Each structure stands twice: as C-alpha cells, then as structure tokens.
C-alpha cells in the first residue's frame, strides 16, 4: 500500500489492519456496546480464556466519561480509539511482530528511540492481570504490551499476548500534531475535530452534568440482575447464555463509569461497585472457560 506520509488517522488504522491481517489475525469491527477499554471486547477478555488458539485485531472506541474536557484539552477525550491485537498463544517473535507494525506506520527504529518499560497491567473490574511493558517511542507511551496471566480470576493457558495502541496519540506523534483536533483524519482535508469536536462538547456536558443519577443507578441494578438470569438460561445446545450475560456486565460497567463521572459514587462505595462488577465478570469468565474446554456444551 502506498498512502500519503505521514499517515492520516484513517490510513493509520487501515495500515494496522493490513499488517495484522497479514499476520493471520481475524480483523474484527468494534464491539457495539460502550466499553472503557478495548480489552473488554469479548474478543479479548473472553477469548483469552480456554485452550483454543485465537488471533484477532480490531479498533475499539473507548469511553471514559470522566476524561471529557468539553473539547478544550488538546490531549484528553472522553471517547477515543484503541487498536487492539490479541495473539493466543503469544508467538515467540511477538515483540518483533509488534515492532514491525510500528515500522509499517512509519516509525523507523533506527531514527526513533523504542523502549520496553516495565508496566504490569491489571484491570480489577474484570479480575485480570498480566506482565509486560508500556512501549515508549521517544519518551512517549505508544502502546501497552501485556502477557495475560489471569482473566476473570482464572489462570490462562495458553498465554495470550495483548497489544493496545492509543490511536489518537500515535497519530499525533506520526503526524507531528500537538492538538488532537488538528489530526488529519483523511487525505481530503477532514480534521479529527471536524468529526469529533462537537461529540466531545455534548458528551462532556452529558457525562458531567446531564445524566440522571437515579436512572443510572436503577439501570445499573437492572443490568446487574440480568447477568445471573442469562447465565441460568439455556441456549439451543443446552449451553448457558454467557455471551448475552457478559454484554450486561459491560453495560453495568459503563453505567458505573457514568455515575462516577457525575460524582455520584462516594469514595467508600467505589470499591463495592467495582467488586460487584468483578464478581459478575468472574461468573461469566468461569462459564465461558468451561464451555471452551467442553465444546459439547457450546
């Protein structure tokens, strides 16, 4: 492929798609539920469990309601994109593959300083942790690189390697742009701000001021109740409905983030909410892992 250099935002994504497609990954589309991180897509969090091989790459919009800045901060967004790669089991040359992807988007490792700096990843709301690094390019964190060790409180075997690229930040670096809204989205003059600035303004206002806390709370509890309900229901092959159950965990998790942005979660309540989500997630993880080990049940 020969795109105009430096790559536009969308060509950056297309280049990564092309690169990881050549490495044998399934190229997925974003999951259609609001999530706080690409890891939460079932293609990562659930597929990391169980014995089956799996290679996937996708873009996932990430919603962080509390990070909104009404479009006024050049680096902070309440909605941004992560590029997510999962390779299970992780191949021996995964670091080289990763560096190859950076070279593909125009980061020459003989010109830039690439470093693997210790960063142990954990996500308490899904009971997951792993060891790895944040990857620095000239002092800037461009990716998170993790070897999963546990998901949903369960040990993983085989181990999956996960890569998460912060796309806006990476694009800003590649394009040499200081303000995210100035990113070239395509090669036809459309800027990132043209696409998303209004989005940031409206959602920042909604996240911080407009969402109805009582409604959010009620919805959270509704979603919470749905998880065990779906897990108790059986599909056509007699399997528990773990995938719909997990969707409701994601919804509960996003509702929690919205309540948090509204300042509706007291410090003392915080741990208890996170614990509730983690427990639901664990139930799903256990059921999914069981189904993966016993294909007859799925």
């Amino acid at each position: 492929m020969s795109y105009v250099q430096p790559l536009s935002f969308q060509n950056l994504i297309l280049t990564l798609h092309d690169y990881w497609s050549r490495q044998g990954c399934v190229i997925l589309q974003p999951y259609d539920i609001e999530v706080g991180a690409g890891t939460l897509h079932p293609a990562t969090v659930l597929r990391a469990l169980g014995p089956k091989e799996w290679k996937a790459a996708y873009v996932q919009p990430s919603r962080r309601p509390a990070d909104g800045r009404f479009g006024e901060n050049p680096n902070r967004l309440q909605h941004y994109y992560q590029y997510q790669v999962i390779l299970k089991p992780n191949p021996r040359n995964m670091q080289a593959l990763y560096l190859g992807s950076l070279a593909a988007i125009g980061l020459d490792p003989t010109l830039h300083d690439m470093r693997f700096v210790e960063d142990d990843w954990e996500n308490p709301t899904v009971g997951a942790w792993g060891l790895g690094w944040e990857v620095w390019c000239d002092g800037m964190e461009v990716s998170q690189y993790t070897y999963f060790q546990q998901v949903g409180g369960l040990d993983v075997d085989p181990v999956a390697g996960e890569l998460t690229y912060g796309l806006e930040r990476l694009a800003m670096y590649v394009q040499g742009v200081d303000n995210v809204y100035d990113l070239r989205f395509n090669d036809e003059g459309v800027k990132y701000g043209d696409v998303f600035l209004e989005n940031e303004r409206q959602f920042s206002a909604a996240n911080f001021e407009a969402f109805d806390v009582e409604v959010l709370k009620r919805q959270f509890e509704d979603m919470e109740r749905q998880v065990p309900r779906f897990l108790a229901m059986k599909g056509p092959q007699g399997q528990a409905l773990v995938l719909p159950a997990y969707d409701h965990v994601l919804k509960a998790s996003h509702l929690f983030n919205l309540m948090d942005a509204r300042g509706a979660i007291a410090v003392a309540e915080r741990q208890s909410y996170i614990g509730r989500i983690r427990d639901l997630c664990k139930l799903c993880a256990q059921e999914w892992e069981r189904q993966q080990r016993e294909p007859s049940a799925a």
Partner: protein
Amino acid sequence: MPQLLLELFSEEIPARMQAQAARDLERMARERLAEAGFLPEALKTFAGPRRLTLVVEGLPVAQNDRKEELKGPKVGAPPQALEGFLRKTGLGQDQLVERDGVYFAVIEKAGRPTPQIVAEMVDSIIRAFPWPKSMKWGRGTLRWVRPLQRILCAFDGEVVTFDVDGIESGDLTEGHRFMGSGRPFRARDFDAYAAGLAANFVALDVEERKARILEGAKTLCFARDLELVEDEGLLDEVAGLAEWPTPILGDMEPHFLDLPPEVIRTSMRTHQKYFAVRDPATGKLAPNFLAVANIEAKDGGATIAAGNAKVLSARLSDARFFWDEDRKHSLESRLEKLKGVTFHAKLGTMYQRVERIVALAREIAPLVGADPELAAQAARLAKADLGTGMVGEFPELQGLMGGYYARAEGLPDAVADAVRDHYKPQGPGDSVPTAPVSVAVALADKLDTLTGFFAIDEKPTGSKDPFALRRAALGVIRIALEQKVRFGLRDVVGVASRIRAEQPAGALGKANPDEVLSFFADRLKVLLREQGRRHDLVDAVFALGDDDLVRIVARVEALDGFLHTEDGANLLAGYKRATNILKAEEKKGPLPEGAAIRLPVAPAEEAALVDAVHAVSGPVNDALSREDFAGAMTTLAKLRGPVDAFFDKVLVNADDKTERENRLRLLSEVRAAMGRVADFSLIAG
C-alpha cells in the same frame, strides 16, 4: 583451567529487578557449584535489559572421585537392620567398616563430567529463580520474569547441551535490538562473547552503562555551559533501560521554568526518566533536559530530542494547568472535599482526621514552643492539598504543594512551612522539621495515625506494616530527639486517644497506651542499636517507667559510658550479686524493711558500705533531678570499692538474725540506689 559461560537471554527485564537478579544468579551458582564439590577461581555475573550472564573461571573438566561414608546400624543390632543397610548400600558385610561399635559403609563415587553438572545446575537455577514477579508465556509451563528466549551455555569451548521446558541450549546470542547486525552470533567463551556484544552495541556491564551515561551527559552539558543534576536512583534505573545508553540533551520551553522546581523535576523523573539540568552560574534549573536513549540514531538524535521535548511539553502543560487551577481555590475551600474522602473505613473521613490533628496540634504546641493558633491553622490546612490536581497527579508532592499554595494565598510563613514539612521525616535519609509550628503539626499527624491504627488493632506484624506505623513512630522519636522536644509520651498518646474518642464517630476502640508505649520502645531500640547502643540498656532505662524520649536517651548514653568504665563494669557485677542474694531471700519471705544501720558488731567493710550508701543517696537524687545522669553514675561509682570489699569480707547469711537482716537491708539499699538510675537487672553481663 576451563571456563563456563552462561547467558539467559529474555525479553526486557524490569530495570528495578536487574541488580538483585545478578546477585541471585551469583549466589545460586555459587551454592550449586560448591555443593558439587567445585572451588572455582572466579565467578562473576552481569545483568542488563535483556540478559543475565554468568562467567565461572577455573572449573575442572570433571568432579574428583569422591568417597562417601554412610552410617549404618550398631554392631549387634537386629539382623534385619543390617540386611536393610546392606541392601541400601549394595555392599556385603565384609565390606563394611566397624568403628566405635557402629557399621559404616564407604561408597566410592566416580566424579561426574562438569557439563552434566552444569546442565543440572542451569535447569535448577532457572526453575528456582526468585524473581519478585514472574510469568508464563505461550504454551510453556516455565516461569521467568518475561519470556526467556535463548540459553547460551558453553563450557571449555564446547556447548553444554540440554533443554529447559523446550528451550534448547546453544552457543548463539543476539546483540542490540536495533543497532546490532540483526543476526545472532556465536560465542563459546567469555572473550568471544564480550567482543561480539561490543561489536553489536551492547554494554554488558551495568557499570559501563552508567559510565557511558554519566560521562556522555556531563560532556553534553559542558558543551553548553550547563550542569547535570545528578540523581543516583535515576541513573541506576536508566542504566537498566538501555543496552547501549546514549544521552541526549534536549530543550524545554523556557516558560515552564516558572513552575516550582520540584514539580519540573518530579515530572521529568517519574514520567519521563529524564535528568534535570541547571545553570551553573545561578544553580537554578535550566530550560533543558537530559534523556537517555537506547540508540545512536542516524540523524544524531535530533528526532529523538524533538520527540522527547514534545512529550515533556505535554507533561509540563498538564502540570501548569494544575498549578494555575489549584491556585484559584484557597486551601480552606478544599476542606469540604475531604469530608468525602475516607481515611480508613474504621477511622472516619480525612476531614475527621484533620479535625483530630488540629486539636492535637493545638495541645502539643505549648510543649514545643509553638503558637497554638498557628499550629491549629497549619494542621487544618495540612491535608487540603490532597484535593488539588497537582497532588492527584504527583502524590509524592503532597505537603510540598500545600506549602506552595499556602504561601501563594499569603498565609504566614510558619503555616506554609508547617503544611510543607508536616510529613517529615519520610525516611531515614529525610530531615526532621525544625520550626516549632511544623514540629507541632508533624507530631500531631503521626500520633493521630499511631493511636488510630492501634485502636482498631491494625498493628504492624512481621514485615507487614501497611500503614507505615513504624515510620510514624520513628518520626516522633527522631523529632523529639533531634529537636530536643520534651514531653511525656504517655501524656500525648493519651491526649490523642481522648481527642479521637470525643469525635462523634470516633468511639471505635481505644489504643492501649501500654502497647503504644512499648511499640515506641521497640522503635527506639532499633534506632539506638543502629547507632551502636546496646538494646538491653534501653530496656534497663525503659523499665523505670520514664516516657520522656530525650531523657531516656540521655540516660542510655550515660549508662553506656558508665558501663564502659572499670568501676561501672564491677559495680554491675556487685549489683547482680546483691540482687541474686535478695531474690533468693525474697522467695523465703518478705525482706526486712527499713534502712540499714551501723551495728556495733559490724565488720569495718559493712560499716563502710552503710556509710557509702547513705552518702551517695542524696547526691544521686540531686544529680537525677538535674538530669545529670553522668553525674549520678559517677556518684554511684563510689559504691564500687565498698561493695567489692563487702562481698569479699562479709558473709550476708550470718547466723545472728539481727546481723543478717541488717545486711539484707543494706543490699536492698544498694539495689534501690542503683535502681533509681536504671534497672541494672536487665543489663546483660
């Protein structure tokens, strides 16, 4: 003699773990080689971002043949025992040796070839390696700090062949990830290995990497008339982040220099691992930074410098945003927010904690010469910076930022300084606060922490001290001693407990003052032991029930000096003798009360001791009331001669009851006189 070379090549090892890994590798190899009966000439290890390396010089090609002696049953033991022993050893009865009525089997063991032993050693080292955190990868079952990619193992110029969980040993390794040839190279001895690494841009030795950084950095700074702000911890860290460390001097936008220098340095250090740079003429930070890259870039580092400058600008813009925003609100206005912050589920909110510290600081202030109102004001604002954006971003700047913000608001310097310094001392290397208001708030902060966590039974156990109570106690002790602050520990602990109990939600539990006091005693012992004082002396002084830290230490020091004199040592021996006699008598019944007198029949030595005891009593008390402990002990020393002479010539257990009781009274008086200075019975020796 032959050489062993081992390299464990992995993905990037966290910088903070490398030095310990080199020590662990050395220890484990040493233990295992010794166990195999080897005595190598030299053993050295290296650790870097992607490799652990071991070189052992002077190993024989095989173990010596060894004789092992096994102890068997006694001669004349039941035949089954002997049969079992013969079966176990594979020998006949005529091959056993008889010694001291016991059978011994001598088994000749042929020495095994060294490579066999090395293969087993490497396998066991890898599997038992004590990484602080380790992981699995792929489909393997092995654990290592990050995926282990290669094992290079050569002995005497030959590959030692084995595999560990599917990773086969060989003679291949790799150079620098980007600057090396890109192809693995072979090495079967250390010279070839070191040469290969050097040719492929890997500095193997951490000292070499540090020297590259430091010399390179200083040269870059010198060329622009700047000075590196040295930082040893940071140097250690960056030396573990690059195989070919290459310093790069970059430019920072000068307008950031109006931020507090601590903010700039913390941002540089924690987020970016940059060294700060200063102007040698003024000593102030210069608008530059020094980053350490892992490559010599083909454009001379211009791209890297520009990229890093951009990242730093973004970081410092964040910091400036916090700095500007934070100053728009007074510290006082942030207190409300602390009501929503839990300090500890059982100890209430941060706001309640502030209320307690305020009350406590107000009461402590007169003891330390501080104005109670200023102390209360400073205590009230001490934690307000927890709600600021800057402290949210850089928790390690707590206190310091509060101090800046207090000054920016125009609060009195004494208040701003106390807000800034009240966490001090934060470790053994940190100084204690000196200004009276700061001292009052610092003490209140720590005493509230201690009594609170003791009240809810969250005491440190073993190596676990999640609320840093040991540090808090040590802080109180150091402040008292270094500032010569006088207070009764029991009193202030009591005040702290009372204040907590008076809070509406504060009725949960009560710290046991004896427990808190003995916790302090333990910390003091540790501190004094570090200063070379004997811990039994601390016990001897603590037993008196004194709780004034300054006085306790003065007593311990005087006591230590006294016991180093000949008089002191001998008097201690005399004291022990006296107490042993008294204890034996006490078992029979109560000791006779009252003072000893000069009985007409008394031998001269008894009379002399009676006189001496009565003569020292007054002066000892006078000296003690002046807190002249050395004086008290010098006075006590006058007892030494009479005590020695008494025990030499006089029999305490006289047949005559009057004489015996008088002598027991006399010894009781000696014990009591000395007991006013310290409990000598707790002193060893």
